[in-house]
C-alpha cells in the first residue's frame, strides 16, 4: 500500500516536471543563446534560411551543406510553396521563430517589416550591387538582390518569330493562327503571379512615371479604366482569353511542361523558368520577347527577391547570417552557386556572369543595353497580387462575357480594396 502511494506520487511529480520542462523550454533556449561566451565559437552556431524561391530550394540546401563543411556553421533551409511566402514569414516572425535570413520582395514589404530588417550598408560587397538594384529603406541598404531577372514572352523559335508579336494586331493574328492549328498560342498558369502578377506589370511600367502614377491611383485621382495603356492591356487579355485554353486549369508545372513539349508556342514567363524547361529534352531553340503592349519592345527587368537579415535575432546569430551572405556574395563557391546552380543573372558587378542560358542571356543583353522597362510591381501595395488581383483575374477567365474593359474596372476595384 505504502509502496503504491509512493509510486503514485513520484509519477505525479514526474509528469509535473515534464510539463514544467516543456513550458520553460522557450526561456531556457533563449538563455543559452544569449550566453555570448559560449556561442562565440562559430562551430555551435546555427542559422536558418527561409526564402521565397521554390526553384532554388534543392540547390540552396546543397550550398548549405558545403558551407557547413567549410566553416562548421550549421545552415538550415526551410521549405515553402511560394505563393503565401510573406504570410508564412509573418507568422514565423510573430511567434519569435523567425529565420535568421529571409527574403524580401520589395520596398513595400521591407516597410512592413521595418523593425526586423538588419542594416547591411556597411558590408563590403554592397558597393558591388548594380546601380539602382539594392533594396533601400530610409537610405539604408536592407536587402541584397538575389540576381537580376526579367520576364516577357518566352517563345519557341521554331513556331514564332519576333515580327509575329510586334504589336497588338500581329499578336492577335498569331494567337488566332495557333488556335486554328490546335496549339496554345500563349500559356499562363493558375498561380497568382503567373496568372496576373507578372503580366499586369507591363501597363504600369509603361507609364511615364509609374511611381507617381501608382500614388495617383492610390489617392483615387486616376483609374486604370481611363488610362489608355490599361485599355489596350484589357484588349490583350481579351485576345488571350478568346484564343487560348483557360489558364485556370493549368499549373505552373503544366505550363512549362506544355511549352517544353511544343504544345504551347509562347508562355508568359521569366528567365527563372529555364531551369525547369531544361529538365525536359527540348529540341528547339527558345528566346524571350517583350509583351508588345502599345508596341513595347523592351523586357521587364528587375530584382525578384532580396536576401535580408533578421535583426531581432541575438548578436551572434546576426553575425553568422552576415558571414553567410558575405561568403555567398564574395567567395568562389558562392559565386559558382549563384551563377551556375541557381541560374541567376548576377546583380553584383563582382560576379562574372559566365555562361548563361538563352533566357538569362536575353535578360542580360537587355539589361546591359538599358533597353528595359522597370518592375513597377515592386511598388504595388503588399499582397495585392494574391489577395485582390488574382480573384479578379479568375473571374475574368471564368465568365465568357466579361470584356477587357470590365476586367480593368475590376482591377480598379481590387486596387481600392487593397489600399483602403
Amino acid at each position: 500500500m505504502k509502496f503504491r502511494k509512493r509510486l503514485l506520487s513520484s509519477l505525479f511529480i514526474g509528469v509535473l516536471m515534464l510539463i514544467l520542462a516543456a513550458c520553460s523550454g522557450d526561456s531556457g533556449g533563449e538563455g543559452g543563446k544569449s550566453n555570448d561566451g559560449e556561442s562565440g565559437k562559430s562551430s555551435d552556431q546555427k542559422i536558418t534560411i527561409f526564402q521565397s524561391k521554390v526553384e532554388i530550394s534543392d540547390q540552396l540546401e546543397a550550398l548549405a551543406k558545403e558551407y557547413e563543411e567549410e566553416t562548421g556553421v550549421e545552415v538550415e533551409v526551410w521549405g515553402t510553396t511560394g505563393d503565401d511566402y510573406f504570410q508564412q514569414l509573418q507568422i514565423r516572425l510573430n511567434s519569435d521563430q523567425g529565420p535568421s535570413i529571409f527574403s524580401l520582395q520589395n520596398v513595400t514589404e521591407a516597410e512592413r517589416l521595418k523593425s526586423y530588417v538588419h542594416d547591411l550598408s556597411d558590408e563590403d560587397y554592397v558597393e558591388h550591387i548594380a546601380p539602382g538594384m539594392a533594396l533601400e529603406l530610409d537610405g539604408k541598404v536592407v536587402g541584397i538582390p538575389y540576381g537580376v531577372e526579367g520576364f516577357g514572352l518566352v517563345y519557341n523559335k521554331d513556331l514564332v518569330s519576333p515580327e509575329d508579336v510586334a504589336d497588338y494586331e500581329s499578336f492577335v493574328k498569331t494567337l488566332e493562327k495557333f488556335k486554328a492549328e490546335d496549339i496554345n498560342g500563349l500559356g499562363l498558369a493558375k498561380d497568382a503571379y503567373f496568372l496576373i502578377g507578372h503580366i499586369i506589370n507591363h501597363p504600369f511600367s509603361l507609364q511615364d512615371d509609374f511611381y507617381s502614377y501608382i500614388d495617383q491611383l492610390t489617392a483615387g485621382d486616376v483609374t486604370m479604366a481611363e488610362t489608355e495603356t490599361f485599355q489596350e492591356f484589357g484588349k490583350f487579355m481579351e485576345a488571350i482569353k478568346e484564343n487560348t485554353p483557360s489558364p485556370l486549369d493549368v499549373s505552373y508545372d503544366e505550363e512549362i511542361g506544355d511549352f517544353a513539349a511544343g504544345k504551347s508556342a509562347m508562355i508568359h514567363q521569366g528567365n527563372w523558368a529555364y531551369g525547369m524547361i531544361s529538365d525536359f529534352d527540348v529540341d528547339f531553340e527558345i528566346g524571350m520577347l517583350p509583351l508588345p503592349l502599345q508596341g513595347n519592345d523592351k523586357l521587364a527587368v528587375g530584382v525578384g527577391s532580396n536576401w535580408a537579415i533578421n535583426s531581432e535575432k541575438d548578436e551572434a546569430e546576426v553575425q553568422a547570417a552576415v558571414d553567410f551572405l558575405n561568403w555567398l556574395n564574395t567567395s568562389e563557391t558562392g559565386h559558382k552557386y549563384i551563377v551556375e546552380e541557381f541560374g541567376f543573372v548576377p546583380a553584383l558587378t563582382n560576379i562574372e556572369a559566365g555562361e548563361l542560358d538563352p533566357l538569362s542571356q536575353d535578360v542580360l543583353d537587355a539589361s546591359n543595353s538599358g533597353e528595359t522597362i522597370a518592375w513597377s510591381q515592386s511598388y504595388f501595395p503588399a499582397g495585392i497580387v494574391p489577395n485582390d488581383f488574382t480573384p479578379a483575374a479568375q473571374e475574368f477567365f471564368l465568365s465568357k462575357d466579361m470584356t477587357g474593359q470590365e476586367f480593368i474596372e475590376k482591377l480598379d476595384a481590387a486596387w481600392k480594396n487593397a489600399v483602403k
Partner: protein
Amino acid sequence: MKNSKNRLWYILFVAPLVLIFATVVVIPFLMGIYYAFFQWDGIGANPKVFVGFDNFKHLLTDTRFFKSAWLTTLFTILAVASVNIVGLFFALLVTSKLRTANAARTMIFMPYLIGGLILGYIWQFIFTDVFKRLGELTGFDNVFFNWLMDPQYALYAMVFVFTWQMAGYVMIIYIAGIQGIPEDVIEASKIDGANGWQRLRKIIFPLLMPAFTISLFLTLSSAFKVYDVNLSLTGGGPANATELFAMNIYNEIFGYGNYGFGQAKAIVFFLIVAAITLTQVYLTKKREVEM
C-alpha cells in the same frame, strides 16, 4: 483516505490536459479578445493603436465578410445534411447482417484518418484531371467537368469532400447508438408486426436522439469552422466564391495585415458558432427520450 487518493489520480490525469488546453485555447482566445480593440498589422514590433469598438463597427460595412458569411451558412446547411444522412445510412448498413460489415466499417472510417489537407489535395486532382477526363470519355460533360472552376459547383465540391471526410466519423457515433438499442425492443416490435420503416421511425430514431445530438453538434461546429479542406481544395477560389469564414479571417489578418480587425471578425464568428450550436444542442436534447 480513499477520497484524497482519488483526487490525486484525478489531478494527475487532468492537469496536463488543462495546461495544454489553457495554453493553446483559453489564453490565445483571451488575447484575441484584447487585440480586437486595437488597430495593429500583426507584426510584433509595430505599434498597436487602441480604437475601441471601431473594428466591430467597421465589420458592418465589410461586404466580403457578409458574402463569406452567407457562403458558410449555405455550406453548413448542405454539409450537415449530407454528412448525417450518409453517416446514418452507412451506420444502418454496417449494423445490418452484412457479411462485409467489418471491412466496410474500416473503409468508411478511413478518410477521417487521412486529414482534410491531404484529402483536399487528392480531390483537387480528381476534380481537375479525372473528372475532366471522365467527361470527355463518357460524354456526360454536364456532370463531369472541373467542379472547382465553377463558382457554384466549387462549393458543392467542398460539401462532397467534407462529407467524404466526416461521414465515417459520425457513422461510428450512430453505430454506438444503434448498438445501444436493446434487442428485445426490436424483437417485440417485430412480433407486433411493425415493418422496417415503422421500426426505424418509431423506435430506432427516437432512441438514437442522443447520437443525433452529438453528431449534429460535431458536424455543425466543424462545418462552420472548416479551413483545411477549403484551403487545399479551392483556396477560396475561383474568384472568392468559396471563401468561408475561417479563410476570410485568415486572409484579413495575414493577407491584408489587419490583425485587430481580423480578431474582431473572429470574435463575432465565435459568438455565432456558439449561439447556433448551443441552440441545436438545446433543441435536440429536448427530444431525447429516456429508456
